[in-house]
C-alpha cells in the first residue's frame, strides 16, 4: 500500500461514514411517516400523487398485500420497459434513428432494470434512444431503488411491531422514498456532476476532427470520430445512488462524458455506498437502538476494508510477466504503476480498484475500469463480493435485508450456543423464519452455480451469428471460466457488473441471465416479506442477561464469520478452477 492509497481510502471512508449517519436518520423519519414528528410533512405533490393514483395512505397492508403491491409495480415496470425498447424505433427522442431492440435483449434489459441489477447486454449509445434511456431505464432506476428500500422498511417494521398483522403501505413507502430521498439527492448529485463536465443534452451525435489522425486495420486514414451525446447526468446520478449501475454509455463511468474528473469520480464513488451505509443507521433508528445499526454497519466495513485493500495491493503489484519484459511498473509521481491495463489514466490504480470493490460490495455494478483486465486476485475479490450475496452494503434496501437474513442465521447458531431458543431484537427465530432465511441465502448460490454449469457445459461457449459460429469467451482456460462465473455471479446477485470479455448479447445469455436476475430479486423479496409478516405477529421478549446481545463486537465477529464462511464454502471450488488457478499459474516459476 502506498501512502497515496491509504490517504485516498481513508478519505473515502471518512466522508462516507460521516454522511451516512445524518442521511440514515433522515430516511428513518421519511419511512416512519409524518406521525413520527421529525420527517417531512405530506406535501402537495405527495398528496396529489395519492389522489391521482387512488392510494389511501393510512391503509396498512399485510405481508401478502405488500408483496402483491411490490410485484404489481415491478411486473408492470418490466412490461413497460419491454414495450418501450421494442417500439423505440417508432417513438420520439431518437435522433440517431436507432431501431427497436430484439426480443431477447428487450426481455433481458427489462428484467435487468426492474430488478435493480442493470446488467447491460447492449451498448447504450449504439442501441438505445434518449426516450428509452429516460423513460424506460431511468424510471426503473428510481422505482427499483424505492422497491428495495420499501421491502427493507417492511422487514424492519416486522421486527419492531408486536403482535401486528400489518407492515405499512408499499405505495406510500415508494412515493415517500422517491420524493424525499431519491429525487432530491439525485438532483443535487446531477448538478454537481454537470459542473464537472458530465453532459446533459438531447443533441444528435457529433462528429469531430481527430487531433491525431489514425489508420485503420485496412490502412485507410481515420480523421473523424463520432461523439455520443445525451441526457447523461440525470441518469447517472440515480444510477450511482440507487445501486443501479446501468451506464448511459457502453463503457459506463470510464467514459469521459460520464465521469470526467477525479472529483466527479469521488462523488460517484461516494454515491455508490452512501444510501446502503445510511440504511444501517435507518435500521438503528427504527428499532430504537442505534447500536444495532452500528453493529451491522461495522460487519460490512470489517469485510469491505480488507478486501478493498487486497484489491488495491493486487493491482498495484501488477503482473510478474510484464515486469519480466523490463516494463517499469513501480508507482511514482509520473505514473500510477501496477497493472494499468483496462484502467483510465485519470483514475489510476487506487480509484479503479476501490471503485471495483465498492461497486461489487454494493450491488451497483457500474465500472470505471474493465474488471476483465484486473490481475487474477484483483478480479477474484469483486467476484467474491458479489457471491457473498450482495450483503456487504449491497443494493439499496436489498443489501441490508439480505444482511438481516444472515443475521437471523448467525443469531440462530449463536443463540443455540448460549442455551436459548434464538431471538433477534426480541423476536424468537423459529422454524418458519429459518425456512425463509434459508431460501434467501440458498437461491443466489444456486443460480450462480447452476447457471455457470449450464453455460460451460456447452450452450454458453459458442453462438451462431449469421452464418458463422463464434466463441462467447474472449480468453481460453481458467480466465474464460472466470468470465462466465462472473457473469452469473453478477446476475444471480442482482449486481449488474460485467467482467467484460464475455459476449453476452445473444439469446442464451440474454435469457439465462434474465431468468437468473428475475429469480434473484423476486424469489428473495417474497420470503423476506414473509419473515417480516411472521416476525410482526410475534410477541416481544424483553432481553435479559441470558439473551445474546446483538450489538457487541462478538456478534459482529459471528455475523462476519457466517457471511464469509457461507460465501467461501459455496464458491471455493468454483473459484479454484477460475481466478485461483489463474493466479497460481501467473506466479508459478517458469
Amino acid at each position, binding site marked *: 500500500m502506498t501512502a497515496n492509497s491509504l490517504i485516498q481510502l481513508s478519505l473515502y471512508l471518512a466522508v462516507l461514514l460521516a454522511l451516512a449517519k445524518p442521511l440514515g436518520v433522515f430516511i428513518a423519519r421519511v419511512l416512519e411517516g409524518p406521525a413520527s414528528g421529525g420527517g417531512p410533512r405530506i406535501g402537495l405533490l405527495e398528496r396529489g400523487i395519492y389522489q391521482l393514483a387512488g392510494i389511501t395512505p393510512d391503509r396498512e397492508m399485510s405481508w401478502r398485500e405488500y408483496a402483491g403491491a411490490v410485484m404489481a409495480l415491478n411486473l408492470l415496470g418490466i412490461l413497460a420497459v419491454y414495450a418501450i425498447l421494442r417500439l423505440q424505433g417508432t417513438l420520439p427522442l431518437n435522433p440517431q434513428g436507432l431501431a427497436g431492440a430484439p426480443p431477447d435483449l428487450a426481455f433481458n434489459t427489462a428484467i435487468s432494470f426492474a430488478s435493480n441489477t442493470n446488467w447491460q447486454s447492449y451498448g447504450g449509445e449504439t442501441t438505445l434512444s434518449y426516450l428509452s434511456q429516460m423513460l424506460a431505464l431511468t424510471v426503473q432506476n428510481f422505482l427499483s431503488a424505492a422497491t428495495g428500500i420499501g421491502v427493507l422498511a417492511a422487514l424492519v417494521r416486522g421486527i419492531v411491531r408486536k403482535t401486528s398483522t400489518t407492515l405499512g403501505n408499499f405505495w406510500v413507502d415508494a412515493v415517500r422514498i422517491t420524493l424525499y430521498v431519491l429525487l432530491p439527492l439525485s438532483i443535487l448529485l446531477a448538478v454537481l456532476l454537470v459542473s464537472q463536465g458530465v453532459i446533459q443534452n438531447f443533441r444528435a451525435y457529433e462528429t469531430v476532427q481527430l487531433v491525431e489522425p489514425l489508420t485503420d486495420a485496412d490502412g485507410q486514414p481515420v480523421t473523424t470520430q463520432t461523439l455520443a451525446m445525451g441526457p447523461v447526468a440525470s441518469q447517472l446520478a440515480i444510477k450511482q445512488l440507487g445501486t443501479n449501475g446501468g451506464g448511459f454509455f457502453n463503457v459506463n463511468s470510464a467514459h469521459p462524458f460520464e465521469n470526467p474528473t477525479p472529483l466527479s469520480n469521488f462523488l460517484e464513488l461516494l454515491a455508490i455506498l452512501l444510501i446502503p451505509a445510511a440504511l444501517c443507521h435507518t435500521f438503528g433508528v427504527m428499532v430504537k437502538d442505534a447500536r444495532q445499526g452500528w453493529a451491522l454497519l461495522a460487519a460490512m466495513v470489517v469485510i469491505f476494508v480488507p478486501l478493498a485493500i487486497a484489491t488495491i495491493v493486487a493491482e498495484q503489484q501488477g503482473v510478474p510477466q510484464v515486469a519480466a519484459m523490463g516494463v517499469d511498473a513501480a508507482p511514482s509521481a509520473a505514473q500510477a504503476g501496477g497493472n494499468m491495463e483496462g484502467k483510465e489514466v485519470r483514475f489510476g490504480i487506487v480509484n479503479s480498484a476501490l471503485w471495483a470493490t465498492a461497486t461489487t460490495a454494493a450491488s451497483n455494478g457500474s465500472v470505471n475500469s474493465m474488471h476483465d483486465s484486473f490481475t487474477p486476485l484483483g478480479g477474484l475479490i469483486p467476484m467474491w463480493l458479489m457471491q457473498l450475496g450482495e450483503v456487504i452494503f449491497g443494493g439499496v434496501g436489498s443489501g441490508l435485508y439480505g444482511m438481516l437474513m444472515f443475521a437471523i442465521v448467525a443469531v440462530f447458531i*449463536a*443463540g*443455540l450456543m448460549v442455551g436459548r*431458543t434464538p431471538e433477534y431484537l426480541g423476536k424468537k427465530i423459529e422454524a418458519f423464519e*429459518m425456512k425463509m432465511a434459508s431460501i434467501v441465502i440458498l437461491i443466489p448460490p444456486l443460480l450462480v452455480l447452476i447457471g455457470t454449469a449450464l453455460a460451460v457445459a456447452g450452450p454458453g461457449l459458442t453462438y451462431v451469428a449469421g452464418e458463422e459460429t463464434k466463441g462467447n469467451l474472449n480468453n481460453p482456460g*481458467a480466465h474464460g471460466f472466470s468470465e462466465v462465473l462472473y457473469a452469473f455471479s453478477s446476475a444471480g446477485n442482482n449486481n449488474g457488473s460485467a467482467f467484460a470479455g464475455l459476449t453476452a448479447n445473444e439469446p442464451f445469455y440474454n435469457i439465462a441471465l434474465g431468468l437468473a436476475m428475475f429469480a434473484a430479486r423476486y424469489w428473495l423479496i417474497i420470503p423476506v416479506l414473509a419473515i417480516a409478516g411472521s416476525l410482526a405477529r410475534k410477541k416481544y*421478549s424483553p432481553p435479559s442477561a441470558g439473551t445474546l446481545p446483538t450489538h457487541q463486537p462478538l456478534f459482529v465477529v459471528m455475523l462476519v464469520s457466517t457471511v464469509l*464462511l457461507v460465501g467461501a464454502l459455496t464458491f471455493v471450488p468454483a473459484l479454484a478452477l477460475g481466478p485461483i*488457478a489463474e493466479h*497460481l499459474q501467473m506466479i508459478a516459476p517458469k
Partner: protein
Amino acid sequence: MTTLPKARPLFDPPIVLRAIRESFLKLDPRRQLRNPVMFTVFVGSVLTTVLGFLAIGQDQGESPAFVFAVSIWLWFTVLFANFAEAMAEGRGKAQADSLRSTRRDVQAKKLAEPRYGAPHQIVSAATLRKNDVLLVEAGEVIPSDGEVVEGVASVDESAITGESAPVIRESGGDRSSVTGGTRVLSDWLVIRVTANPGETFLDRMIGLVEGAKRQKTPNEIALNILLAAMTIIFLIVCSTLLPYSQYSVTAAGQGSVITITVLAALLVCLIPTTIGGLLSAIGIAGMDRMIQANVIAMSGRAVEAAGDVDVLLLDKTGTITMGNRQAVELVPAPGVEMSALADAAQLASLADETPEGRSVVVLAKEKYGLRGRNVQDLHPTFIPFTAQTRVSGVNLDGRKIRKGATESVARFVGENGGMMPPEVCSSVEQIAKQGGTPLVVADGPRALGVIYLKDIVKGGIKERFAELRRMGITTVMITGDNPLTATAIAAEAGVDDFLAEATPEAKLKMIREYQAGGRLVAMTGDGTNDSPALAQADVAVAMNSGTQAAKEAGNMVDLDSNPTKLIEIVEIGKQLLMTRGALTTFSLANDVAKYFAIIPAAFATTYPVLDRLNVMGLATPSSAILSAVIFNALIIVFLVPLALRGVPYRAVGAARLLRDNLVIYGLGGLIVPFIGIKAIDVLLVACGLA
C-alpha cells in the same frame, strides 16, 4: 451439573453391544429418510459401492480399491451416526426395562361400590378401565394409577422414584394420587382408577424413555431446516463441479475429469454430517438427562422450553425456606420475667405437636434453661387449637395459658378482663417487620410476651438465586404470607420479586402478566389448586407427591418432589440447545480444512499449480481424499460422549458463554481437522495404503 445418583457409565457394555446391533438395523432406508443429511450420506454410500463393482476389471479410471475404500468409510459414516442414536436410545431402553420389570400383571380387587367393605371380585389389572374402584391392602401392588377415595396408607414408591422412604397417601387433600406399580405397605386404600391400560404413568414413562413417541421439537425442526439448506448448497456445489471440471480439462488441455467417487466423498465431507449424525442422539440424551435427574418430561418440547425460561415462580415454603417456622426468640412484656414467659410458652406448647410448637419447647429448654418436666403430675387440661378460638394452650392449677396470633390472644385477654400492653403490640409489629411470625403468650388477663417464629431460609439458596440472575432468570417467590413478612424473606433469600398473600387466581394472573410481557414462565406445584397455574405456565413441574390433577396439568413430573429441581431442569434445557449449537458450529468450521485436503487432490491433474493449496502436505491425491473421509466418519464417534453428556453450562452471561463456545467449537473446529486429517494421512502412508 451435579452428579446424579442413578448415572450409568457412558459406555455400559450391554448398551454398547445393543447399540452396535441397532446401528445395522437402522440402515433401513425408510429410517434414514427421516434425516436429510444422513440420507444423503446413505445415497452416497450406495452409489460408491455400485461404482466400486463397476470399476472391477476396468483398465482405465479409478482403482476399485480406492473406490471401495471411500465407499466403506461412507458406510461407516452412516453406521457411526446410527450408533450414536442407538447409544442414546439404548440408555433410555435400559431404564425402560427396569421400569417394565415393575409392571407385572397383578390381580386387582375390583369393588362393586366405591366404599370400604363393599364386595369385590378379583380381576386382572389389564382389564381395568377409568373410574373402576379398587381395594388395595397392605403388601399388595397398586394395579393402576388412581385417586384415593377412602383410607390412609403408607406406600412404597421406590419403583418409580428410587426413593426408599415410604410416603403417606390419603383421601382428600394434596396427597391423594397413587401410581400404578407402587406397593401399599400398611393399611388399605380404596382407589378410583384414573387411567386406561397403556395410558398409565408407568406406561407413559416407559414410552418416553424408549423414545417410542419421540417427535422432533420446534428448535430441532428449525435446525434441521438449516442443515437441509446447507446440504442442498453442497449438493449443488459438488454436482456443478462435474461440468466445471469437464470444461477445465478441455480448456487446460490436460488431466482427467473429476470422478463421481471423489464428488461423493467431497459431498459427504462438506455436508454437516457431524451435527446431522448426532442431532437425534442429542435430543434423546437431553430427555435421558432429565430422567437421570428423576424428572419425567412429558415431551421433548418441554425440555427445550426449559432452556428458555425467563421467570421462575418458586413456592416459599419448602423451596426457599425450610418447611417450617422455628421459634428463635422470646420477648417478654414489661414487668414479666424472662423465665416466667419461657415457662408459660413451654407449657402452652407441650401438647402442640406441630413443628412450630415443638420448636418453642426446644427454644425454652435450650436458650432459657427450662428442663422438661412431667406435666402430667399437674393434671393439665390441654386446649387444642380450634378455628373458633384460634388459640391453643393449657389449663392447670387454675392458670389459663394460651398462645396464638395477636388478635386472637388480644380477644382472649379481653374476655378475661385484661388488656394488651402497648409494648407487646410494638414487639409484635417489630417481629412482623423483620419477616417473622409473632405468637403472643397470655396467662388469663395478662399478656406475658411474644414468641418470635422465624422462617429459616435454606442454606446456599441466595447463591443459587444470584447464579440464576446471571443466567438471566428472574426469581419470584410465591407465599401466602402478608406483604410485610414476604418483603423481609424476599430480601433475605435474594429473590427478585415476590407475590404475597398468593391465591391460585393471583398466581395465574401473575403468570399471564409475565407471559404477556413476552417471558417464559416456569413453576412447580403439587396441589390441585395449583393446576390452573401449572397449565398456564410454559414449564410446569408437578411434584410426584402431588395430586393427579397437578400432575396432569404439568408438563414434567419431578419424582423426587424437590422444588429446587427447577434450576437443574433449566440447566438441562440449556445444555441441550448449547450442544446443538456447538456441534453445528464445529461441523461447519470443519469444512475449511476438508477443502484444503480435497480441492488440490481433485484437480491435481488439470491444474497441477493447485497443489500450492495442499497446505497439509498430504501424500497423494487418493490419500488426501481418503483421510478427509475417514476423519469425517471418526469425528462422529469421538463426539458421541459430548452429544450424550451435553456441553457443560455455566452461568456466566450470554456474551461470555458465546465467546467461550466460539473459541472451543468454532476455532477448534477450524483447527482440529487440519491435525486430524494430516495424522490419518501419515498413518495411511505408514501402513502403505496411500
